[in-house]
């Protein structure tokens, strides 16, 4: 188990460098000239332009740019944005907001997803099951931005129950609406995964044995059926956490949440490699850790799985 964990962390190193190199190259290869855009189409003194290019190493060939970036990275210097701020500061401001949003969305989808999924799975074919299936289908079919705009207009403007956009530092209570929108689509998937898994395991041998042993229905459901049915759900949630931590560009845009999604979107538009690569680098780490946690959870959920 310990060896397994260490091995996984060692895998992180090539993945990290591969991903950052790739992303650095992608930003480099996007057409357009960030310094020209910086001047907003107005003239710029040639000497000023040359000095700015040198400042962001944009006068260097690609390999040199990437090498200089890595060199700075070793000293924990993530570079500067075009507006002259430290990328580390920018990320440190945006990440807590996105993390809060992700945790809320994840909690929402995990709790209600598993709850509804279990009930639907146990009452397969009944009214509740059919209702949940149809409702989740609708949610999956409707794009996030439609959900976002509709909820924003109804709850935020017409009913006035919540602020339509997040204020200032994005406190927990104002993030409820965006978290709901963000979690809804995944909620539908979690319900469907849980339901399918539960209804499949209900006929498994060990469930019949448990029931035959005379265990209470409650114990059979919670300990035997649910625990074993959670493996696909946990896999999904793990991957989803990674996605959520990457920031939700659409949802953050609709609710004006100053999170990583917004940050990344702006940085890509400006061609700001330093910011894009730093965010992606952190995401790589988040994904690897989330996957590791999922793998470790497998062993806990199903004792038949062992890591050596």
């Amino acid at each position, binding site marked *: 188990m310990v060896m397994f964990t260490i091995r996984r962390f060692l895998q992180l190193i090539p993945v990290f460098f591969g991903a950052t190199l790739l992303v650095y190259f992608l930003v480099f290869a996007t*057409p357009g000239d960030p310094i020209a855009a910086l001047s907003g189409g107005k003239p710029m003194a040639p000497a000023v332009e040359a000095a700015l290019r040198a400042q962001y190493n944009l006068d260097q060939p690609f390999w040199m740019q990437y090498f200089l970036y890595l060199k700075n990275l070793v000293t924990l210097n993530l570079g500067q944005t075009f507006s002259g701020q430290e990328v580390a500061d920018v990320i440190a401001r945006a990440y807590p907001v996105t993390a809060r949003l992700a945790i809320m969305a994840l909690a929402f989808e995990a709790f209600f997803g598993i709850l509804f999924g279990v009930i639907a799975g146990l009452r397969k074919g009944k009214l509740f099951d059919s209702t949940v299936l149809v409702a989740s289908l609708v949610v999956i079919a409707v794009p996030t931005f439609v959900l976002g705009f509709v909820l924003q207009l109804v709850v935020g403007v017409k009913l006035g129950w919540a602020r339509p956009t997040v204020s200032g530092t994005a406190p927990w209570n104002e993030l409820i609406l965006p978290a709901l929108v963000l979690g809804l689509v995944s909620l539908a998937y979690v319900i469907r995964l849980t339901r399918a898994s539960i209804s499949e395991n209900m006929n498994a041998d060990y469930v019949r044995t448990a029931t035959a042993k005379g265990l209470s229905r409650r114990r059979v459901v919670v300990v035997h059926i649910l625990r074993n049915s959670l493996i696909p759900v946990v896999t999904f949630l793990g991957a989803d956490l990674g996605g959520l931590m990457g920031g939700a560009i659409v949802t953050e845009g609709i609710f*004006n949440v100053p999170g990583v999604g917004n940050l990344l979107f702006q940085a890509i538009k400006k061609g700001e490699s330093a910011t894009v690569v730093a965010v992606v680098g952190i995401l790589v780490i988040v994904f690897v850790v989330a996957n590791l946690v999922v793998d470790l959870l497998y062993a806990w959920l199903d004792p038949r799985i062992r890591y050596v």
Partner: protein
Amino acid sequence: MRFSRTSKALGLAAVVAMSLSACGGGTDSGNTATGDTTKVITANNTEPENGLLPANTNEVGGGKVMDLIFTGLVSYDVTGRTVNELAESIETEDSQNYTIKIKSGQTFSDGSPITGKSFVDAWNFGAAAKNKQLNSYFFESIKGYDTVSAEGATVDTMEGLKVVDDTTFTVELAQAESDFPLRLGYTAFYPLPESAFADPAAFGQNPVGNGPYKLAEGGWKHDVSIELVPNDKYNGPRKAQNGGVTFTIFTSLDAAYTSVQADTLDVLKDVPPSGLQNFTTDFEGRNVNQPYAGNANMTIPSYLPEFQGEAGTMRRQAISMAFDRQQIIDKIFYGTKTVATEFTSPVLDGFNKAIPGNEVLKFDAAKAKELWAKADAISPWPADKVFTVTSNIDGPGNKEYITAMANQISTNLGIKAELNPVTSFKEMRAMVNKKELTGASRAGWQADYPSLYNFLGPLFGTGAGSNDGNYSNPAFDAKLKAGLAATSVDEGNKLFNEAQEILFKDMPAVPLWYQAVQGVWSNNVNTVQFGWDGQPLLYAVTAK
């Protein structure tokens, strides 16, 4: 002529007021003093792209903040007329040598005095190449700019700037430029306190200015908000009439629009495209739609082989006449823009909507076809050649209007015409700057200061910085130069409009329409006025 006081000399500019007030939208300045003057007003903004230094702020995100926390020698009132702020007088006899006297006893918000040196040092700092200030080119008229702006320059003071005494300094320009005093209200020309130069980067994060507001302690919360509080040291004409202004940073205008609907944001400049159809009903009695000093053009570069010589000129004119501007404005922009009748803007002093030659801006399919046929007789249009219009399509409405325009050109001229979409502004600028266009490109200009010259010189002067199409015509350059050397603003404007006659013959760009600002405000505030540049006059906004 002798400029005794700038405000008086430029009082002629009052004509501009006409075009603004005719459009309604609360330009009556008498109704603002009522209401609660202690509440904080919130307004939308984008995150400033650079530190808040005058010569490094070249975009609206930073500009909106700078204009409230700084003030220059002059400022522009709601109609674009210059009024003296710090200037006691700006005098010249030849439009080349200026003597500027500043009001005595003025201070920055930290109490340090504003002297002639505050201006001279700030301008020298802004011009010097080593300081990497984006607005550096604004000082190019000043004598000695060439030496300080050269790569690796060691000199960092311009010889054209001299401090005479505490309240006087002189400016010598490289050539006569009559509209120089008009420029002095622009961000780049603001003064800086002594403390700015020790660590400009740090100063840019926490600027000390002299405007109607100052940055609250730790007021700049990056990507979130910028909080300004009234500056009690300020005693100019733009006195704060509220308890402060807080800019909320929005990355999406749709989100900002919804916030004003819910009264959680007070003032929004720029209704998003999705709101253009309904904003007058969504915000009944709380909206404005008024022209500002900005326009939209289509540049047809002079280096395109199909647009050379006499045939090229005819083709440019034919294209200009081949589409119905008003129809596109009505269908795509819901009538929120005005058809262009020349190359500048109707809010400017000297604007003339009847410049000879401007009939090429009128939709006339028959005439267009005839001209095109004539051009073809001289040198035939290549059979498979497509007339393209390059534009970034991430901007609101760009894709729609260019597609409509191309379709009409195609139908009316019988050639293939289409939008050449690029994904981002930076990509388009790179193509334009490298002169890699194979067709026309979308262009637009927003004035830095209210002057006809600002729409002509930088865009069409030979070798000028924003001359995307490499246009060059010595006769046009001569007219501009004569206009700059004129000793009165009126005479200058007359010459600038004569220069436009030359533009109509050559058509280096096809004027499309004049921009208008669509603004809305919440139930929490009284009527909001919007200025000549389309920006809300936030200092004059009062709470209900």
